[in-house]
């Protein structure tokens, strides 16, 4: 029979100061741990939300991102002949042929940063219905006009309605601000595809081509068409959501690896803190341990009681750390996405798996910190424990 949980719980409350310090230490580490995972997940979530599961994005094979992809005019025409492209009510194919370039803009707080400029076709609002004009209006396709993502308009100078941005030897007027449900498009500037091709002298070569599938089940057939048609073998169709998910991998992994490395170093401090607390708990309660052993409680039940106490401390730390980390969801940050070389704005995002991972991390800290003191408690000689050690 185990030592009653009541005893563990009540003993835990008696050393308020040391316990609070230990809980704080563990909570801080859990906070950093959860924050790192939330950041990586935020990047992933943002980029996954950028793509739709029934849109197909075509890029040149082996291109790492949209910038390094190129699709010439002839190929564009071949792709347009594929039968799997959805049509609007007027029978027009829902397709957007997009030149993607990177320009630099001045940040309000100082310095410059890269931002993505995407040329889109008229049908883009059908292709990506999550795009909503928040202020102003849509660009006129026959003019050098741009609409900007919400995150860009907040962060960069001259990215507001009425401003003009200079690139490709011309001034582009900003006529609207759009939002895209927190996706990666929020960090982009959009203009007309042909206007951009013309300004950058790219002829008819776009970076990527995205179309809506008439039926989501036709993707495999579509893929086969690219593999079998000699004119298309150099190109690769991907579900748009998957494409952007892959784009997030490098940055998310980088954040995760670096963050976890730092957190693990922090956790050593928290483990030592837990260990000191538990050693002092054992030292302060030597007579109690001796008494319980003499009453017939086994070594194992003493070990479990002290380990439970350590785990309990760490679980409280996890709850506190996660509680504060959850507020990070209200923060939006931006960083350079290594895959697109452009600014990406995202929010910290919490997921059930992050909550579980944080709890596991805290429990491991509690277990490692509490194990040796608990073993010491269990191994105490009854006679000397009754004498106070």
């Amino acid at each position, binding site marked *: *029979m185990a030592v*009653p949980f*009541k*005893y563990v719980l*009540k*003993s835990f*409350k*008696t050393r308020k100061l040391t316990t609070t310090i230990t809980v704080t230490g563990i909570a801080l580490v859990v906070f950093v741990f959860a924050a790192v995972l939330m950041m990586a997940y935020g990047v992933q979530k943002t980029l996954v939300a950028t793509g739709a599961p029934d849109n197909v994005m075509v890029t040149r094979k082996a291109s790492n991102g949209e910038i390094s992809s190129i699709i010439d005019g002839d190929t564009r025409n071949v792709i347009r002949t594929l039968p799997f492209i959805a049509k609007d009510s007027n029978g027009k194919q829902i397709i957007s042929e997009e030149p993607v370039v990177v320009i630099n803009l001045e940040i309000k707080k100082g310095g410059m940063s890269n931002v993505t400029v995407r040329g889109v076709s008229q049908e883009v609002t059908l292709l990506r219905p999550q795009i909503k004009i928040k202020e102003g209006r849509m660009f006129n396709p026959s003019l050098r006009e741009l609409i900007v993502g919400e995150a860009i308009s907040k962060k960069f100078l001259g990215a507001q309605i009425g401003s003009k941005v200079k690139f490709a030897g011309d001034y582009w007027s900003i006529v609207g601000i759009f939002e895209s449900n927190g996706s990666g498009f929020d960090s982009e500037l959009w203009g007309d595809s042909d206007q951009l091709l013309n300004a950058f002298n790219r002829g008819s070569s776009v970076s990527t081509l995205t179309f809506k599938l008439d039926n989501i089940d036709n993707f495999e057939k579509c893929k086969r068409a690219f593999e079998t048609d000699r004119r298309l073998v150099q190109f690769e169709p991907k579900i748009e959501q998957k494409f952007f998910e892959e784009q997030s991998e490098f940055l998310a992994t980088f954040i995760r690896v670096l963050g976890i490395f730092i957190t693990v170093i922090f956790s050593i401090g928290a483990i030592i803190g837990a260990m000191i607390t538990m050693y002092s708990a054992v030292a302060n309660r030597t*007579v*109690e341990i*001796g*008494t*319980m*052993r*003499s*009453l*017939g*409680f*086994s*070594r*194992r039940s003493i070990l479990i009681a002290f380990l439970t106490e350590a785990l309990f401390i760490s679980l409280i730390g996890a709850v506190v750390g996660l509680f504060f980390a959850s507020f990070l969801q209200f923060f939006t940050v931006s960083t350079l996405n290594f895959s697109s070389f452009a600014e990406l704005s995202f929010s910290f995002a919490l997921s059930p798996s992050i909550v579980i991972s944080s709890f596991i991390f805290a429990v491991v800290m509690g277990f490692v910190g509490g194990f040796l003191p608990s073993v010491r408690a269990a191994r105490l000689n*009854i*006679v000397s424990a*009754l004498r106070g050690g």
Partner: protein
Amino acid sequence: MSVIIQIKNVSKSYWRNSLEIPVLHDLTLNVKEGEFLALMGPSGSGKTTLLNLIAGIDRPSKGELNVAGTDIAKLNESGLAKWRSASVGFVFQFYNLIPVLTAFENVELPLLLTKLSKSERRKHVENVLSIVGLGDRIHHYPKQLSGGQEQRVAIARAIVTDPVILVADEPTGDLDKTSAQEILTLMERLNKEFKKTIVMVTHDPHAAEKATRLLHLEKGDLV
């Protein structure tokens, strides 16, 4: 009456930095069921060591030790723990109550090692607390009780499992005269009325008077 504690040629030594310190020498002693035995002797004479051996919280270096029909010198660690929970009740000089538990919870502690249900445990605890005269203090914490009351809770804890023997190490050593008298009267009652075999270590001749048998230990030998 049958012999309940049989100690035959028992020796006990401690080791300190490879130096053997003999405490008990070839000691032989029988205690009959229902006896109230007082062990007296100067400090370091081995009284507490003998008590610890009888109670199964220490092991003899040599000899046979049969208590309540079990050769406890041969039991392993967990066997000994089980045996203690069923056969021995402890009363310590400084009461050794768990400060974070109430009187009720302290007394209930040894019963958690039995198969009794919660309501049965409650019945037992309330019963023994009323025997020791603390039926109205069951939800008090040790710090809310006087020394005498604390020792009575400790005695209630010692008898709640209805053990075969009670061992008491200076049970009145930390009490004022009145409280000490109350505790001794209670122990005498447990011996006479409830037929408990008691082995008590004491320095107090007045306490020893309550015993039915008095033994003196000197330098590890019975004299």
